[in-house]
C-alpha cells in the first residue's frame, strides 16, 4: 500500500533526526573539545550525503523500474540545501566572526572555500524553484534545464571536500568516486539512450516527479 504522503513524512522526520541530535549533543556538551569543528564536519557530511542520495534516485529508479522513488528526490535535495546552509552559517558565524569582508577574502584566497561556496550558491536557485508552482510557472523544459545545475553543485561540493583535508583524503576520494559514477552514468545515458533494459514508463523523469507530486 503506497502512501507517498506518509512516506514523505517518514523521510522528513528521519532527515531531521541528525539536526535534532546535533542540537541535543551541543546542549549537553557532547560535541568534544571543538564543538564548532564537530558541527561543521557533521553538517558538511550530511549535505554531501543528501546530495549524493538526490543524485542516486534517477539511476536507481531506472535500474529497478521503481518509479515510486521519484517522490523523494525533491525532499532529499532540500535536505542537502538545508545542511549545506547550516554548514555555511556555522563557518560564517564562528570562523569568520560574521564578517562579510573576511568571508569574501577567504573565498578569494582559498580554493576549497571557493568550491564550497560555489556548491552552495548553485543550490540556491534549485531550492528556490523546488515548488510545484515554479515548475508550472517556468514550464517543464526550462525548469529541467535550471535543475541541471545540481551536477555542477555536486562537482564543486566534491572538490570542496577533496581539497579540505591536509593529508587524509580517503573518505573524500570514496565520495568523489560515487559522485563521478553518478555523473558519469548520466553522460553514458546521454550517449547510449538504450542503456536500460527496463525502461520506466515516463521517459522524462523530472516532469513526472512534478506531476505526481502535484496531485497531492
Amino acid at each position, binding site marked *: 500500500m503506497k502512501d507517498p504522503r506518509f512516506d514523505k513524512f517518514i523521510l522528513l522526520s528521519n532527515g531531521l533526526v541528525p539536526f535534532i541530535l546535533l542540537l541535543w549533543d551541543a546542549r549537553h556538551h557532547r560535541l568534544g573539545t571543538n564543538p564548532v569543528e564537530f558541527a561543521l564536519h557533521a553538517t558538511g557530511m550530511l549535505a554531501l550525503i543528501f546530495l549524493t542520495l538526490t543524485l542516486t534516485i534517477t539511476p536507481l529508479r531506472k535500474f529497478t523500474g521503481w518509479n515510486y522513488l521519484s517522490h523523494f528526490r525533491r525532499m532529499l535535495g532540500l535536505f542537502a540545501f538545508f545542511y549545506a546552509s547550516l554548514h555555511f552559517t556555522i563557518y560564517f558565524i564562528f570562523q569568520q566572526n560574521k564578517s562579510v569582508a573576511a568571508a569574501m577574502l577567504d573565498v578569494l584566497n582559498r580554493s576549497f572555500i571557493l568550491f564550497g561556496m560555489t556548491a552552495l550558491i548553485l543550490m540556491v536557485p534549485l531550492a528556490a524553484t523546488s515548488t510545484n508552482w515554479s515548475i508550472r510557472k517556468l514550464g517543464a523544459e526550462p525548469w529541467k534545464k535550471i535543475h541541471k545545475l545540481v551536477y555542477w553543485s555536486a562537482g564543486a561540493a566534491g572538490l570542496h571536500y577533496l581539497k579540505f583535508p591536509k*593529508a587524509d583524503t580517503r573518505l573524500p576520494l570514496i565520495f568523489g568516486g560515487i559522485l563521478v559514477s553518478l555523473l558519469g552514468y548520466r553522460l553514458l545515458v546521454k550517449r547510449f539512450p538504450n542503456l536500460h533494459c527496463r525502461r520506466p514508463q515516463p521517459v522524462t523523469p523530472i516532469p513526472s516527479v512534478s506531476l505526481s507530486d502535484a496531485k497531492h
Partner: protein
Amino acid sequence: MLIKKPSEIAGSEITDPKVYLSRRRFIRLGILAASTAATGWVYEKLSHSAASTVTVATLDGVVRSSASGRASGFWTDEPQNSLQEITHYNNFYEFSSDKNEVADLVQGFSTRPWTVSVEGLVRRPKVFDIDELLKISPPEERVYRMRCVEGWSMVIPWDGFSLSKLLDRVEPYSAARFVQFQTLMDPGRLPNQHWHLLPWPYVEGLRMDEAMHPLTILATGIYGRELPVQDGAPVRLIVPWKYGFKGAKSLVSIKVTSVQPANTWSVAAPEEYGFYANVNPNVPHPRWSQAMEQRLPGLFKDRPTLMFNGYGEQVAGLYAGMDLKANF
C-alpha cells in the same frame, strides 16, 4: 448430522473503522519510531567515537613551576585546558586524522619496552632505555601555549626537561648544526602507517640553537602524570613558539646532523609547511589565514595570533636578520 448454516456476521464482529484506523495509526507510529531511532543510532555511531578515559600513573618528583618562571616563558597564568580536552583532541595521524577519535584508538598501545637512540654527530652516542632517559633530569612543570597550524590553541601544563640536558650528555661535535627527531615506525601498532597518508616514519627537525633553547623540552607528562599515548607517550618534543606539528610524538630516535633534516609535513606539502614553522600571524597558510586563532574550548576564532606564539621575548633573537616570510 446437523449442518449449521454459517450465521451472518454479527454486526458486533465487524471491525469498527475506528479500530481499523487506530491500528493503522499504531503501525505508522511504529514505523516512525523505529526508523527515526535507527537513523539516530547510525548518526551517533558515525559521528562520535567511543568514550574513553585516561588512566596514567602520577609522575614522581615534579618540580612545580610558578610565576617565577614567567620571565623565562616557562609559565603562563592563562586558564589551562582540562585533561579531558588535552587527551581527546589530538593530531596523531599514525592513529587517525580525526582528532576526536585518537583517544579511543590508542587503547592497548604499550610504551614499554621502549628505547630512544641518540646518535649522529655526537661524541657519546647512546641507545637509552626509556626509563633511563626519563631520569636524565627531574620533570619540571612547563605551562605552555600550544598553537596548532590548523588555527586552534590550548594552554597545556607539560612536565618534562629541556632537550639541551639530553644533548649535553651525548656531547655534539662542533660540526653539529641540526637535530632530527623520529617517531616510532610500527604499522602493527600504528595502524595508519599501512596507508601512505604521509611519508612515514614521521620526522621533524630543529636548528641546533633552537634545540638547545631552554624553552624546547622533551615532554614526559601532563598535569603531573605520565604522558598519555595520544599526546605522544612515552616522550615527545615540545617547541612552544612553533606550530604544533613540530612537536614530534613517541620518539625513537634523535639524530644530530650537519645538514638541515627533512620534516614530514614539508615533504608532503612543501608550499604549505616549512621547516621553521614559527607561529606567525603575518604568514597565512594557503588554506587559511593565521591572523586569528580559536582558543579551545572557546567557540570563536577571535583571538589574535601572537608572533612566536607570545614567546618573542625569549626567541626572537634566534631569527635576527632572517626573512621569516621566505623561511616560513
